[in-house]
């Protein structure tokens, strides 16, 4: 078919007048991964921009169809690698809906999940802020941000066993209870965070260079944002208070008090402010979740058909041994049906559309990648602006290419 063999050439964008065609990326440092943008430029200003994606396509969805339900979850974490827990939670919630155990999840597991979701949101925003700063020449912000993120990764490692991809969320609850000393370390982070965020604001928010580079740059109108399917902080920077945590509460978010920061300007500076405010709101949720976690309780449902019994019990009980063996060797089965579940990830509405045919593997896993829809808006944002501003726009949309390309 001729459609499928159209090669990627500069002729994709039309050439008229004095314009020339420039390929930006896929190795350009400010494209945050492997984004290529075919630019038609007239001098310094962009006439047309056509983002090309797919350089990081690894067939995650196809792979997930060939793994057990629990194994597929590890692949889900690798999509948005800056916020692994939000991917994992979304997938796990969808599977739980299909299994019909959503209401059986213990309170403590819900609070641990919320805690991890918000920590991962802060960590992800830290990476965004640091790299956004570097794009604009503010080097020191990067180190402050990564120091803060490192503290959160330490907590992830303590809870799940791995820094980047903890795989801590599990169908039915979480992998294990919070380890000894975790809450004390969390307290230290909670004590450190407000001061550090104030420093970050001090470095950028009133910085005249930063303001010059971001105010009135990349203005995304409400209509365009909704048309392109933009969600998350980028949509809220344009003035729509759509947040999945409030609109379709999940995992006990309705028990928490927090605000949804919105701005109406719709420029890169507004998105910057929304994300910073969001980090403060996340901390509020973290503090509240920490209080709720004082009360001990089960961290997972008590159903040996879905959650493997504790390893210690397999030498004491024949049934535990059998269940353990069954779960490891063939996983669990999920009733047939389809389900859509979404969570508010750091980049917007992250959704999973799962289809089960009753087997021990998902029949189809479709991700709604927030980054991909956000990134599309670049086609509207870029024309008429300078190439230097394009860097600001990409940074302010905060795409993660593991999720865009999957």
């Amino acid at each position, binding site marked *: 078919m001729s*459609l*499928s*063999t*159209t*090669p*990627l050439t500069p002729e994709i964008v039309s050439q008229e007048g004095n314009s020339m065609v420039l390929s930006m990326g896929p190795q350009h440092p400010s494209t945050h991964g492997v984004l290529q943008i075919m630019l038609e430029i007239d001098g310094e200003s962009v006439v047309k921009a056509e983002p090309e*994606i*797919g350089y990081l*396509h690894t*067939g995650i*969805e*196809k*792979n997930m*169809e*060939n*793994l057990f339900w629990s194994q597929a979850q590890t692949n889900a974490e690798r999509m948005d690698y800056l916020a692994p827990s939000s991917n994992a939670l979304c997938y796990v919630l969808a599977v739980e809906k*299909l299994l*019909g155990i959503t209401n059986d999840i213990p309170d403590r597991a819900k609070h641990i999940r919320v805690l991890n979701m918000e920590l991962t949101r802060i960590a992800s925003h830290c990476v965004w802020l640091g790299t956004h700063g570097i794009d604009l020449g503010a080097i020191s912000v990067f180190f402050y941000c990564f120091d803060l993120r490192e503290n959160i990764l330490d907590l992830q490692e303590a809870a799940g066993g791995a820094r980047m991809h903890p795989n801590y969320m599990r169908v039915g609850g979480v992998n294990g209870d919070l380890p000894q000393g975790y809450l004390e370390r969390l307290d230290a982070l909670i004590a450190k965070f407000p001061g550090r965020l104030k420093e970050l604001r001090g470095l950028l928010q009133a910085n005249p260079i930063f303001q010059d580079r971001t105010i009135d740059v990349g203005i995304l109108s*409400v209509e*365009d944002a*909704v*048309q*392109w*399917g933009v969600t998350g902080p980028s949509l809220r920077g344009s*003035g*729509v*208070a*759509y*947040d999945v945590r*409030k*609109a*379709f509460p999940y995992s006990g978010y309705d028990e928490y008090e927090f605000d*949804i920061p*919105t701005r*109406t300007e719709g420029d890169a500076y507004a998105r910057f402010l929304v994300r910073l405010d969001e980090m403060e709101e996340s901390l509020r949720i973290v503090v509240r979740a920490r209080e709720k976690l004082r009360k001990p309780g089960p961290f997972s449902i008590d159903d040996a058909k879905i959650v493997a019994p504790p390893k210690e019990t397999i030498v004491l009980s024949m049934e535990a041994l059998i269940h353990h063996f069954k779960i490891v060797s063939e996983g669990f089965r999920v*009733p*047939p*049906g*389809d*389900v*859509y*579940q979404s969570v508010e990830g750091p980049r917007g*509405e992250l*959704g999973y*559309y799962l*289809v089960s*045919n009753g*087997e*021990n593997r*998902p*029949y*189809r896993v*479709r991700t*709604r990648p927030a980054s*991909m*829809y956000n990134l*599309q808006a670049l086609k*509207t944002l870029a024309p008429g602006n300078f190439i230097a501003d394009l860097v600001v726009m990409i940074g302010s949309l905060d795409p993660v290419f593991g999720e865009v*390309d*999957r």
Partner: protein
Amino acid sequence: MPSTQTPPIAGTAIDPPGVRPAIDDAAIEVVTPAELRARLVALKNEGYTMLLDLGAVDYLGRTPRFDVVYHLLKMPLRAASVAQLATPARLRVRCETPDGVHLPTVSDLWKAADWAEREVFDLFGIVFDGHPDLRRIQMPHDWEGHPLRKDYPLRGPARERSPRPAFALKSNVQAGVPPSGRTLEALQAQIKSHAVDDPKDPGLTGGESR
């Protein structure tokens, strides 16, 4: 490209959405390709301002073969606070599409459909008539076949020609079925022929990370 793999990858499904348990995630509508466009135009006028997602599912063995799934969100445009937004409505429109049937594009109704339709075209081979720029998006532009189709082998058609033994291919092992049917002699013969066929492919001797 038809697969020589048996059974088809990751099992079969006849109609999971038809037998789904009661899950309160969205309202669901089923339409045919002929009435799809008119229905979506009507829905947009009803206030479904955002196209959340557009994906497809390949139910190999069912007629019609594909489901193209539209996730819509009914949301007021000017909603600067959570109270104004209230609870937006979600709607899932499933379009049951036979193999080879073209669908009308909706990228003029919702721009978000632009890349989503390109992705469905790329990975499933479903053509959207009227799309302004229907090219491959995830796979290389000269790729053959549509990888998310169920009859497309997991490791790709190129490696399909030198198949791994049944027990090493996870998708060939059904749940509860012990991997058997291969004798040691057959395997050894396969390793030998394998090495001659394609010296670059490490096959059984390693190289596969999993």
